């Protein structure tokens, strides 16, 4: 830093002993009597001296005396604590530089000490003997004397001690003020006498007054020349003016100065002319600006501590002090003075004149200061600045004086409001303290002054005020200043401060530092911090200044700071509660119960953390420095609830890219947690990197809600895991299984409590894309079983069995076999007529345990197909396509078993966690029903359901389709099976009839079938077995007639005997067979317009029914009767007789038809409309064999 000193400092120290500058001087000091206050001896305490001086200054700075002509005069006095003897030599030039009075202070305990004090006092007297008028000594002894001016009994003053002493017994000094005033008056009288003496002197005879350096100039000059005489006179008048001014005769003084100016101008005596000008200015200033007189007690540098700019100062002064008299009032009231603008003009002239003399540099400087002070008072800062500018044309002088000069300059600049210049000067002053020429560098002083300069350079040592948004000032200058501060702090032996300043530099100036500077600063910081580790606490200096903490927010640089949610299965979720009733409104802007509007800060994260769980924040760090950076002890800075942060250490390679770091911690309480940032320990400095101080952070802080403790569970299944499962929220494990359609399996799910608190609540549900009905079929479990195992203590397990069932549609939708759906009536009616002759016989044949060949089935199928009216080609093609692409490819059912659990405090707060098990069930097709039909069965209460069943597996299958009926099917084989099914009873239909929809009826019947039939299959060779059901069958109207129980109850009597369907009827040719048909209505409403008919036909067993039996049968009685109404549970009976004329097999076709209600279209009875046009047949037809009796 020493090398940084500017050129000004390197000028050599001159041999200049003529004067010591007094930069404190003001224009008013021209009118003062100079008194030196000096403590003598070592006994007296500085504090006592200070107090006494204060009292003296207070009472004696301004006092009035009565002069010889009984006029009141106001006299000013100036007190100094030290005064160089050399300065008194300038007393002829300006009389106020003479030291007129001396007051010493001393304390003694014994005679020897008293003698010493007296001796010292006399020494001072001798020192200033040239100018001194009078002196006093204040002596504080062990006891008071009776007479103040005499020593107390037992003490005597030395014989050569001629001074008046005040002997006090203690340091209270009761009548000090009075004594001092007396002393000052004495001084005044001497002064006034001298002045009068001068006025009486004839100017012709007066001796030439000289400034100290002028002595040699006048050697050899003709002193008697006219010019010189004039010079003598002019100087004498000026001298008289000085005396008059001191004696309080301002008017006289001004006149004297004015005439001196005239005289001296004539002889080109520039130095004294300048002095005369200055005198004029001084008088004017005293008159115009009485406030400028220093207010006792004077505090040096006081203005430097306060950073308020000068503009404020002016205002405050104007308000507190009495208003200065205007020039007019002064002029009219008393006498002529200079106008304010003339004062500075005169000062400028004076300074110009002084500047002509090399040896008058000090006088010139002092005049500049005085002039600038007046300019400040006049509120002309530019003018003042111009005077002060003059100060920079440096006169060589010792360092101490330079420091003085610069500090005074700074003081004045501050008063002007030129804070930058003030700081500039202060910094120079600071550097002079430690300059190379300074024999004993004082780093402490240097540091203190440097610290004061910061405000002018707009450098705040608080990093918060130096944020990029509101930083001002000049970075390069600030960087230099910070470096200097650091050096000074280091040299004065305060490494903590040095560390702090370097840290601050790296924090706030980082963006303005070059790469090299950054590296240097970082390395230096590392070195400095080895002596004293930096910590984020404010440092308090001896002077009371607090240096706020600085943090390394840029090293390492934070690129991102993201709070992490808990893992999905650990995220707490609100347990849904039944909503409280808030009235009829869904939304209300009025917040009931609380007045505070919820201000949702953006920084609040929308997820929750859990007390006791490890919560994480991920960060990306960048090392901008060209060496490896060790960051240790990284922790999260939090506010709010107790948070246990886990320290983290990391090494970031030189100039690395972003490196991810995860900071973790555990909240220990429920409530709101604020994450303010993180702390690091890096380059030997502990830093609190708050997010608000880090650049480019989105949020200043993050707020997280921490919910009370929740349990944690681990879930395992007994099934193998799936290879991959759809990634999702809270899935912890997975299970997979393959099931053939209709197969069931079990899966044991084990729940282990791995947390710290018991699990008190478990709620299991399944989520899948399936509809709820299918879902409930596929997944089942026993809820109670689990509930009995609760609560689940930590480290214990509970298990639950999940039953899975491969629910499939075994019935292939009819689209492929659309023909049966679209034209249902034809084939069914055909079948229903033709079927019984062939099918029952086949079905009743012992087909059990016979393996059918596919050829048979296919031929059978093709027959069926042909019977449906489609060509055989179509049938084969459909078969081929079936083989090529199985209708039901294996489909996978995915489900999530959601285990919602909670416990402990979190449960009370209404939170739970959800762990899901992903379950994939691959459903393989087992059996498939590709076609179906119904046939009348042997019993009227039953019908045959004929199914085309295909084994979709590649295994041989045993299909158990009815009691004791089973069939073996090869893999991929189809076959047709008849299943006897009870007809749908009427009471089931009536449930539906209310709605009267055919579709509903069909559904009911389909359900009826499904509930009664079960196809149990078992794959031979494997363990698999399952059950296929028949849900999804669609039934046509004609099928329905068969499926449904007839609403009409038939009661057939043959030859007066009740006929049962299995009965074999036989009669001989020519017999008269009496057929009685009783019909009773089983419905709950009457049937109308029924036609009951009995017909006979012959079944040729080839699909042809021959009804034309006129020649073979004769019927006695009407074979057709009309029944207008048949009441509910009403019964109708009709009888006819039949005589068979030829032998053979005959069948009775007994049917009951309800006529179309065309005559009565207004009939709206649903049952009528549904039953209208229906034909109910008695099934199976009664068969009668007519034989020849012979």
């Amino acid at each position, binding site marked *: 830093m020493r090398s940084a000193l*500017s050129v000004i400092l390197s000028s050599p120290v001159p041999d200049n002993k003529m004067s010591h500058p007094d930069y404190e001087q003001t224009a008013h000091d021209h009118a003062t009597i100079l008194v030196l206050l000096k403590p003598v001896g070592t006994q007296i305490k500085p504090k006592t001296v200070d107090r006494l001086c204060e009292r003296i200054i207070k009472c004696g700075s301004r006092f009035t005396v009565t002069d010889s002509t009984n006029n009141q005069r106001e006299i000013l006095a100036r007190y100094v604590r030290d005064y160089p003897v050399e300065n008194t030599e300038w007393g002829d030039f300006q009389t106020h530089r003479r030291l007129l009075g001396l007051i010493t202070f001393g304390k003694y305990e014994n005679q020897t000490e008293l003698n010493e004090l007296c001796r010292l006092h006399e020494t001072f007297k001798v020192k200033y003997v040239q100018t001194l008028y009078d002196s006093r000594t204040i002596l504080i002894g062990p006891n008071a004397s009776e007479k103040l001016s005499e020593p107390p009994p037992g003490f005597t003053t030395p014989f050569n001690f001629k001074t008046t002493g005040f002997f006090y017994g203690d340091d209270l000094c009761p009548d000090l003020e009075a004594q001092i005033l007396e002393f000052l008056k004495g001084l005044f009288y001497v002064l006034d006498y001298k002045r009068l003496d001068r006025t009486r002197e004839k100017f012709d005879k007066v001796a030439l007054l000289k400034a100290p350096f002028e002595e040699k100039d006048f050697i050899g000059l003709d002193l008697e020349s006219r010019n010189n005489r004039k010079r003598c006179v002019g100087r004498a008048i000026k001298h008289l003016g000085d005396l008059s001014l001191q004696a309080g005769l301002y008017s006289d003084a001004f006149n004297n100065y004015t005439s001196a100016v005239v005289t001296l101008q004539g002889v080109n005596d520039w130095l004294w002319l300048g002095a005369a000008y200055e005198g004029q200015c001084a008088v004017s200033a005293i008159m115009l600006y009485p406030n400028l007189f220093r207010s006792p007690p004077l505090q040096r540098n006081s203005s430097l501590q306060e950073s308020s700019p000068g503009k404020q100062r002016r205002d405050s002064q104007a308000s507190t002090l009495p208003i200065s008299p205007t020039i007019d009032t002064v002029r009219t009231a008393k006498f002529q003075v200079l106008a304010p603008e003339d004062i500075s003009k005169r000062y400028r002239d004076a300074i110009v004149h002084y500047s002509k003399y090399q040896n008058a540099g000090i006088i010139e400087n002092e005049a500049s200061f005085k002039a600038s002070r007046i300019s400040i008072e006049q509120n002309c*800062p*530019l003018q003042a*600045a*111009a005077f002060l*500018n003059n100060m*920079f*044309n440096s006169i060589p002088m010792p360092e101490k004086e330079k420091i003085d000069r610069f500090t005074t300059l700074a003081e004045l*600049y501050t008063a*002007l*409001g*030129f*804070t*930058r*210049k003030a700081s*500039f000067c202060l910094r120079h002053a600071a550097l002079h303290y430690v300059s190379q020429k300074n024999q004993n560098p004082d780093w402490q002083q240097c540091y203190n002054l440097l610290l004061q300069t910061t405000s002018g*350079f*707009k450098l705040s040592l608080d990093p918060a005020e130096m944020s990029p948004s509101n*930083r*001002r*000032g*000049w*970075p*390069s*200058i600030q960087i*230099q200043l910070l470096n200097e501060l650091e050096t000074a702090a280091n040299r004065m032996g305060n490494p903590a401060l040095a560390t702090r300043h370097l840290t601050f530099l790296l924090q706030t100036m980082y963006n303005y530092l070059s790469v090299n500077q950054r590296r240097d600063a970082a390395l230096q910081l590392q070195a400095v911090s080895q002596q004293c580790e930096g910590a984020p606490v404010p440092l308090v200096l001896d002077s009371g200044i607090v240096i706020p903490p600085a943090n390394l927010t840029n090293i390492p640089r934070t690129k991102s700071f993201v709070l992490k949610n808990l893992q999905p299965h650990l995220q707490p979720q609100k347990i849904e509660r039944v909503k409280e009733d808030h009235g009829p409104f869904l939304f209300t802007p009025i917040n009931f119960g609380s007045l505070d509007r919820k201000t949702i800060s953006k920084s609040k994260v929308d997820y929750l953390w859990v007390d006791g769980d490890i919560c994480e924040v991920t960060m990306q760090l960048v090392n901008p420095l060209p060496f490896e950076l060790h960051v240790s002890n990284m922790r999260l800075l939090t506010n709010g609830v107790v948070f246990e942060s886990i320290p983290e250490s990391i090494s970031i390679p030189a100039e690395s890219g972003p490196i991810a770091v995860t900071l973790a911690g555990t909240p220990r309480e429920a409530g709101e947690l604020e994450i303010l940032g993180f702390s690091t320990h890096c380059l030997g400095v502990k830093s609190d990197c708050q997010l608000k101080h880090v650049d480019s952070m989105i949020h200043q802080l993050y707020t997280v809600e921490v919910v009370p403790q929740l349990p944690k569970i681990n879930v395992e299944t007994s099934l193998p895991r799936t290879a991959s499962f759809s990634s999702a929220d809270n899935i912890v494990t997975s299970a997979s299984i393959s099931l053939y359609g209709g197969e069931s399996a079990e899966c044991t799910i084990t729940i282990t409590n791995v947390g710290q608190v018991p699990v008190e609540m478990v709620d299991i549900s399944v989520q899948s894309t399936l509809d709820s009905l299918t879902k409930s079929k596929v997944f089942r479990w026993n809820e109670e079983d689990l509930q009995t195992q609760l609560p689940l203590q930590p480290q214990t397990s509970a298990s639950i069995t999940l039953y899975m069932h491969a629910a499939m549609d075994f019935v292939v939708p009819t689209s492929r076999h659309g023909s049966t759906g679209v034209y249902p009536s034809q084939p069914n009616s055909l079948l229903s007529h033709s079927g019984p002759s062939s099918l029952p016989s086949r079905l009743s044949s012992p087909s059990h345990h016979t393996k059918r060949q596919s050829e048979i089935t296919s031929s059978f199928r093709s027959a069926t197909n042909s019977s449906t009216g489609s060509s055989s080609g179509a049938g084969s093609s459909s078969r081929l396509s079936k083989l090529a692409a199985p209708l039901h490819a294996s489909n996978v059912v995915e489900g999530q078993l959601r285990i919602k659990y909670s416990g402990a405090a979190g449960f009370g707060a209404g939170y739970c966690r959800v762990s899901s098990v992903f379950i994939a069930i691959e459903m393989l097709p087992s059996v498939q029903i590709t076609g179906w039909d119904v046939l009348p069965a042997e019993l009227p209460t039953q019908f045959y359901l004929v199914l085309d069943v295909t084994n979709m597996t590649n295994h041989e299958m045993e299909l158990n389709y009815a009691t004791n009926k089973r069939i073996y099917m090869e893999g991929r084989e189809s076959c047709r099976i008849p299943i006897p099914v009870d007809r749908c009873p009427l009471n089931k239909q009536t449930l539906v009839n209310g709605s009267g929809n055919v579709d509903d009826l069909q559904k009911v019947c389909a359900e009826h079938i499904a509930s009664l039939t079960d196809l149990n299959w078992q794959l031979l060779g494997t363990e698999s077995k399952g059950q296929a059901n028949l849900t999804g069958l669609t039934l046509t109207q004609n099928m329905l007639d068969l499926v449904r129980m007839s609403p009409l109850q038939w009661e057939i009597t043959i030859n007066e005997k009740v006929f049962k369907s299995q009965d074999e009827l036989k009669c001989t040719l020519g017999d008269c067979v009496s057929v009685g048909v009783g019909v009773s209505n089983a419905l709950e409403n009457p049937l109308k317009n029924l036609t009951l008919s009995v017909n006979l036909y012959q079944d040729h067993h080839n699909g042809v029914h021959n009804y034309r039996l006129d020649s073979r049968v004769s019927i006695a009685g009407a074979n057709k009767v009309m029944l207008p109404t048949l009441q509910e549970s009403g019964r109708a009976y009709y009888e006819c007789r039949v005589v068979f004329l030829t032998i053979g097999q005959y069948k009775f076709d007994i049917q009951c038809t309800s006529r179309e209600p065309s005559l009565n279209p207004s009939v709206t009875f649903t049952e009528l409309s549904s039953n209208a046009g229906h034909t109910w047949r008695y099934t199976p037809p009664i068969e009668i064999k007519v034989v020849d009796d012979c």
Partner: protein
Amino acid sequence: MAVCVAVIGKDNSPKYIKCVDETNALQFHYKVHTSIDIVEEKLNIGTKTVADNKELFLGMLYSTEEYKIFGYATNTKIKFIIVLQSSNATLRDNEVRMMFRKLHIAYANVVSDPFYIPGDQIKSRAFDSAVSEIMS
């Protein structure tokens, strides 16, 4: 001609500073920085006396043995500072005014750049060349 040219923003922070002798840059930083005091004072007086003061040229701010420092303030309180060598006595006031005018035009061009955010550091090649023209 000029040894240092500086543009100072509204808030008295440096927007641009260029010196002939970059090794001694800090010295000029100090000079320009302290001259802001006088600029501010001059601007204060300006606003007090004449509101519609059209004169943007502030004249010499101060002079040392080595350098003379001139100031110029735009109506938007952007300050231009030019440091000249005191030895260069041939420079008239008018020439200094011309330099400032050039600088002002160059600055206006910079600000007209739609991508320039007012208050940012000036980083413009065109401005650089204008400044070096003044300094050459």
